[in-house]
C-alpha cells in the first residue's frame, strides 16, 4: 500500500431508493494500489457505494471522481473498471475463453492478442484447461476465478468485488481469500472489496471502512478498526465484545458490582460518572482472585476446536464472554474469577 495518489474519490454522495436511504453522505478516498474493504451488515449501503463507483447507480447528490476526473454522470461502460459480481454473472451462452475475452473484444483487441491475454489471465487465477467449457460446467470456485480473470484481463483502473466469496463454502472461501490477496498484490490494481464478513475484511485489506445506515462509521487499517474502534457498533461488528456498565470511583478506577477494576481509557474519569465499557473475549482471562478480577459464574462453555468460548454471568446477570485457547478448564455452573486487564477496555457511549 502506498500513501499515494487518490484514485477514487467520493464526496458527499447521497443515494436513496424511494424512502430508503442507501447512502447518507459518504466521503471516501481510495489510494493507488490499496485494497480497501467496505464492511458492514446488509442494508448498510456498501453495495450501493460499490454500484455508485462502478456507475450502475447515479447518486442523488455528491461527486464521484476517478483520477481526479468527474465521473458522476458517466455511464458504467465508459469508466474502465473491472467488476466481480456476487453471482459471478458469467455469460452462459459463451465459453470461458469468450467470457474472459469479452472486455478485450469490446476494446477492439485483435483475436491473437486477446487469446494470449486470456491465457495469461486464466494462468494468473490458476485456472488452466477450461477455456473451451461453458460456465455451467464449472464449479463455483472455478466460476469465481473466471469472473476474476475476466475483470482483470482488461487491466482496469480499479477492481470492484461485490461479496465475491459469499457463495463459496468455508474451506474454499478461506483459500480464495488468500489467493485473492496474492493476486491483488501481484497485479497491484487498486481494489474495492465489499463484504459483511469481518474476518475477510481484516485479513485482506489495507484499509477497512465500516459502514452502517449509509455512513462510514470508521475508516482505518484493520488494526485501527479492531483495536481502536470508534463506536460501539464498530467494536461489536468487528470482532466480538462484551458490554459492561461501571461507576467511576476515581480518575482511573471503576467499580463493577463491588469489584475494583483499574482501567486505562486515555482520559481521566470523574468520580461518580457512569462509564460504559467494552472488552473483547480474548482479553478476558480466567483465574483466581486478584487485582482487576471480578467473580462470575460460568453459564456455558462452547468448544470450538482451536479455542473455547466461555460464557460468564456476573452478579446481576450481565453477560461476559471469555475466549480461551484449546479446551476450557472450567465447566458450566462453576464459580470463577475473570481477570480484566486494565488496558483491555474500550469506552463506548
Amino acid at each position, binding site marked *: 500500500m502506498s500513501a499515494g495518489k487518490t484514485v477514487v474519490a467520493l464526496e458527499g454522495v447521497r443515494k436513496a431508493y424511494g424512502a430508503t436511504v442507501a447512502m447518507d453522505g459518504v466521503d471516501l478516498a481510495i489510494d493507488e494500489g490499496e485494497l480497501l474493504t467496505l464492511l458492514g451488515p446488509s442494508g448498510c449501503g456498501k453495495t450501493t457505494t460499490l454500484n455508485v463507483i462502478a456507475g450502475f447507480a447515479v447518486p442523488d447528490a455528491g461527486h464521484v471522481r476517478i483520477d481526479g476526473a468527474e465521473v458522476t454522470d458517466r455511464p458504467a*461502460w465508459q469508466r474502465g*473498471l473491472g467488476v466481480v459480481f456476487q453471482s459471478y454473472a458469467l455469460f452462459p*451462452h459463451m465459453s470461458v475463453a469468450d467470457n474472459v475475452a469479452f472486455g478485450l473484444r469490446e476494446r477492439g483487441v485483435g483475436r491473437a492478442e486477446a487469446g494470449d491475454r486470456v491465457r495469461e489471465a486464466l494462468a494468473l487465477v490458476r485456472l488452466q484447461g477450461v477455456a473451451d467449457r461453458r460456465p455451467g460446467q464449472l464449479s463455483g470456485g472455478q466460476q469465481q476465478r473466471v469472473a476474476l480473470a*475476466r475483470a482483470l484481463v482488461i487491466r482496469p483502473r480499479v477492481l470492484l468485488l461485490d461479496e465475491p466469496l459469499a457463495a463459496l463454502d468455508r474451506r474454499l472461501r478461506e483459500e480464495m481469500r488468500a489467493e485473492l490477496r496474492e493476486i491483488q498484490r501481484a497485479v497491484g490494481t487498486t481494489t474495492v472489496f465489499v463484504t459483511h464478513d469481518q474476518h475477510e475484511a481484516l485479513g485482506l485489506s489495507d484499509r477497512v471502512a465500516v459502514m452502517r445506515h449509509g455512513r462510514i462509521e470508521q475508516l482505518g487499517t484493520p488494526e485501527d478498526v479492531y483495536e481502536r474502534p470508534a463506536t460501539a457498533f464498530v467494536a461489536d461488528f468487528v470482532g466480538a465484545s462484551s458490554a459492561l456498565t461501571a461507576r467511576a470511583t476515581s480518575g482511573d478506577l471503576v467499580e463493577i458490582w463491588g469489584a475494583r477494576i483499574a482501567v486505562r481509557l486515555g482520559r481521566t474519569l470523574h468520580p461518580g460518572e457512569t462509564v460504559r465499557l467494552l472488552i473483547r473475549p480474548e482479553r478476558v482471562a480466567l483465574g483466581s482472585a486478584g487485582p482487576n478480577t471480578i467473580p462470575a459464574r460460568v453459564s456455558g462453555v462452547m468448544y470450538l476446536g482451536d479455542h473455547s468460548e466461555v460464557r460468564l454471568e456476573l452478579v446481576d446477570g450481565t453477560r461476559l464472554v471469555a475466549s480461551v485457547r484449546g479446551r476450557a478448564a472450567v465447566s458450566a455452573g462453576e464459580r470463577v474469577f475473570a481477570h480484566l486487564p486494565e488496558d483491555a477496555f474500550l469506552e463506548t457511549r
Partner: protein
Amino acid sequence: MAAARATGVAVVVLLLAFLTLPSLVVIVVSFNPTAIMAFPPHGLSLRWYENALTYPQFQRAAVNSLIVTAAATLLALPIGTAAALALVRHRVAARAVWAAALLSPVVVPGVAAGLGFLILAAGLGLLASRWVLIAVHAILVLPFVLRSVSVSVANLDPALERAAASLGARPSRVFRRVTLPLLRPGLAAAVLFAVIVSANEFVVSLFVSTRVTEILPVAMFTYVVNYSDPTMAALSTLFIAATFVAVVAAERWLGLSRVFGLEGEARGGPSR
C-alpha cells in the same frame, strides 16, 4: 376399488375421444371419393386434396396468409420484446394498466374487436388495404409475444447486462451480445405462438378482409358456407397436420411446455 378405477379410465377415454373425434372425422372424411361428407367414407381418394390445392381462391388466400402472418409476426416481435423488457425490468408508472391493455386482445370477444377494427378502418378509408389486416394480426398476436418474451426476460439475470457494461460494452452492444442471445428461447416461442395464432385467426379477420385480401381461414369459411364437399375436410386435414408438426417441433426444440407453465414454474392466467 377396481370399479372406481375403471370408471375413471372410461371417463378420461371418453373425454379424449370427445376432444379428438371431430378432428379424426374430418381427416377420415377428407378421403371420401364422392362429393358428400360421408362418414364412414366409401373409399379412398385424394381428389379433394387436389381440388383444395388448386382452387384459385385458396391459393390466393394461402399467399395472403403467409404475407399477413409473416408481417404481423415481424411487427409484433420488437414491440412485444420492448414491452416485456420495460414491464418486467422497470417500475413503469401504471404497470398494471399497461399489462392489461397489452394483454387485452385475448379477453375481448373476436366479434367486438372485428367490428371495431372494421368501423375504424372504414372511417380511415383503409379497408381495401392489406395493411389493416397486418396491423390487426399484429395486435392480436402481441399478447402471446409479450407473454413468451416476458418469461425469458424474467429469467435473465440483470447482473449479466451490468457485467457486460462494466467490461466496456455500450448499451446497443450489450443488447446485441448478451440480452438478445439469452432471450432467444422466449423469442422463438413468441414466433411460434404468433404464427399459430395468426395462421388460425378467423373471426376478426372475417370482419376486416375483402375477397382480395382474405386469409385462408376466412376463405375456408366462405367455401363451407356455400359448398359442402370434402374439399374443406382435405384443407382442414392439411391445417391440422401443419399445426401438429409445428407444435411437436416446438416442444422438441424449445421445451414448449415450460413456457406454457405445464412444467417448471407455475404461471397463472389464461393462455388461449
